[in-house]
């Protein structure tokens, strides 16, 4: 009886090996091979060729702009995400479910539509275009537009990670701290933050990866001015379209290294908090409409 049960819940060896082989082959073909091919093409003219491509002034300007964009967008979204999680996770109010859905909206909106919306608000013919022009403020086809578009596409990342965590933690600890005389900020820093820090870091990590890698939304608002409004992904496109393969794939390889570092850090974070960290974690039932 036992052996029959065993046989019925464990798959036969041939099925096991076959399924593992199929899954590994799929991931190798879809994910590993593209990664390898980027490095192979970046190194097509040897390491000196790659380094020369990366030290090109336009490439350096693109790297700088990408770092600046992430350095502004990620902290702003972190502040927003923590505020949203505090309001939604620790308090009750009507319309909570709708608010959570709206925060999620940038996930399902095409990045190109996001870029277009900023052109319509801040562009020359846009709502504030005349006013901005009169005051000599340039947002579209300039760094502020790129930062704004990046904030839009990465808007839900941190909130989505921290809201379920704060929600799951409940309010007892905070209420205890407050009733014992702790201030709001003290309570947040010493009671709430330790409970959500790994999830928060996880959200920041994913937000940063997307902020540095965003293409569609940034492409619409950038204007593609070489060395001025080119981020790294946009620079990859320009070089690729000019058939400068070593150049394009060298910058792409740098972005691959960023992705690999993100995955390594992500795996490390999951060791600290194996449950509750998930890129597509469902929002708790009672928050939804």
């Amino acid at each position, binding site marked *: 009886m036992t052996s*029959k*049960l065993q046989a*019925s*819940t464990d798959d036969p060896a041939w099925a*096991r090996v076959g399924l593992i082989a199929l*899954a590994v082959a*799929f*991931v190798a073909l*879809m*994910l590993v091979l*593209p990664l390898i*091919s*980027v490095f192979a093409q970046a190194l097509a003219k040897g390491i000196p060729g790659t380094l020369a491509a990366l030290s090109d002034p336009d490439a350096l300007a693109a790297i700088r702009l990408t770092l600046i964009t992430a350095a502004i967008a990620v902290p702003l979204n972190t502040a*927003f995400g923590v505020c*949203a999680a505090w309001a939604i996770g*620790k*308090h009750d109010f009507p319309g909570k479910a709708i*608010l959570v*859905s709206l*925060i*999620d*909206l940038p*996930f*399902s*909106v*095409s*990045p*190109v*539509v996001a870029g*277009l919306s900023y052109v*319509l*608000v801040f562009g020359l013919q846009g709502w504030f275009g005349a006013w901005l022009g009169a005051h000599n403020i340039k947002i579209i086809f300039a760094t502020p537009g790129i930062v704004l578009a990046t*904030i839009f596409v990465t*808007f839900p990342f941190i909130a989505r990670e921290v809201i379920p965590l704060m929600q799951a933690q409940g*309010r007892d600890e905070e*209420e205890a701290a407050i009733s014992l005389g702790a201030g709001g900020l003290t309570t*947040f820093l010493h009671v709430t933050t330790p409970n959500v820090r790994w999830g928060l870091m996880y959200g920041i990590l994913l937000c940063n990866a997307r902020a540095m*890698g*965003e*293409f*569609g939304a940034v*492409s*619409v608002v950038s204007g593609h001015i070489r060395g001025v409004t080119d981020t790294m*992904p946009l620079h990859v*496109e320009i070089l690729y379209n000019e058939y400068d393969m070593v150049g394009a794939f060298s910058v*792409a390889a740098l*972005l691959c290294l*960023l*992705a*690999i570092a*993100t995955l390594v850090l*992500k*795996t490390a974070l999951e060791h600290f908090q194996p449950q509750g960290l*998930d*890129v*597509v974690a*469902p929002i*708790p039932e009672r928050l*939804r*409409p």
Partner: protein
Amino acid sequence: MAVSQQAWRVGRSRPRSVIPGFGLTLGITLLALGLVVLIPLASVVARSALLGWGPFIAAAFSSRALHAYALSISAALFAATLNALFGLLTAWVLVRYSFPGRGILNALVDLPFALPTAVAGVSLAGLYGSTGWIGGLLALLGIKAAYNEVGIVIALTFVGLPFVVRTVEPVLRDLSNDVEEAAASLGAGRLQTLARVILPALAPAWLTGFSLAFARALGEYGSVIFIAGNMPYKTEIAPLLITIELEQFDYGSASAIATVMLALALIMLLTINSVQAWASRASA
């Protein structure tokens, strides 16, 4: 679950929480949401409304635009279906079997979330082009896998790959062996158990993953344009058509197409919400 549900009800009837900062944090949340997301998106709808009904219909549903929507939707459906099949397989292998390299496989699944889409685009175009490592092999068989619909589906499959794995995985992990053993002890064969017991339990999560992958693929741009060929009426996806209208400074037409895409995104958001609600009811 029951306790927290009850605690929530109690909390709700309480007049005011003792936890401070509600007004401030909710204010910041609403302000940020309004400024960053809602006002800009409203401007898209407002700009297309300026066109008036006739010109809006003409721009949003021109035959070129209709081709683009049809391509975007069908390629996204294709890719999400591939992701559903291979995602289920990958989740199954990750949860049920232990083998060397499982940790690496698990980490790699999230690569599309971490890798910029433009990098995926140039890399896939290189691989599947007629001189690429895979494209060259396929060319020998007479198959063209880049600069056509096949290339678009490949790129969309890449970007949507993690969704099904990551939604099915936790449900599969929580699925207890008891039900399988019960089915087996009642005389069910392995395949019968799989079809009648395991798959129905996974269905809600599976569908959630499928719709997330589909929604992502529908609006995807960066990874597709390098491998698509971008021929009007043939291999031109809807987001690309928006950028083309914009380059010609035809903001009205761009907004009209974007409004249709926004409507599709809202429909997907509602679908995903209700599928997820069903999924968490089913797993509770």
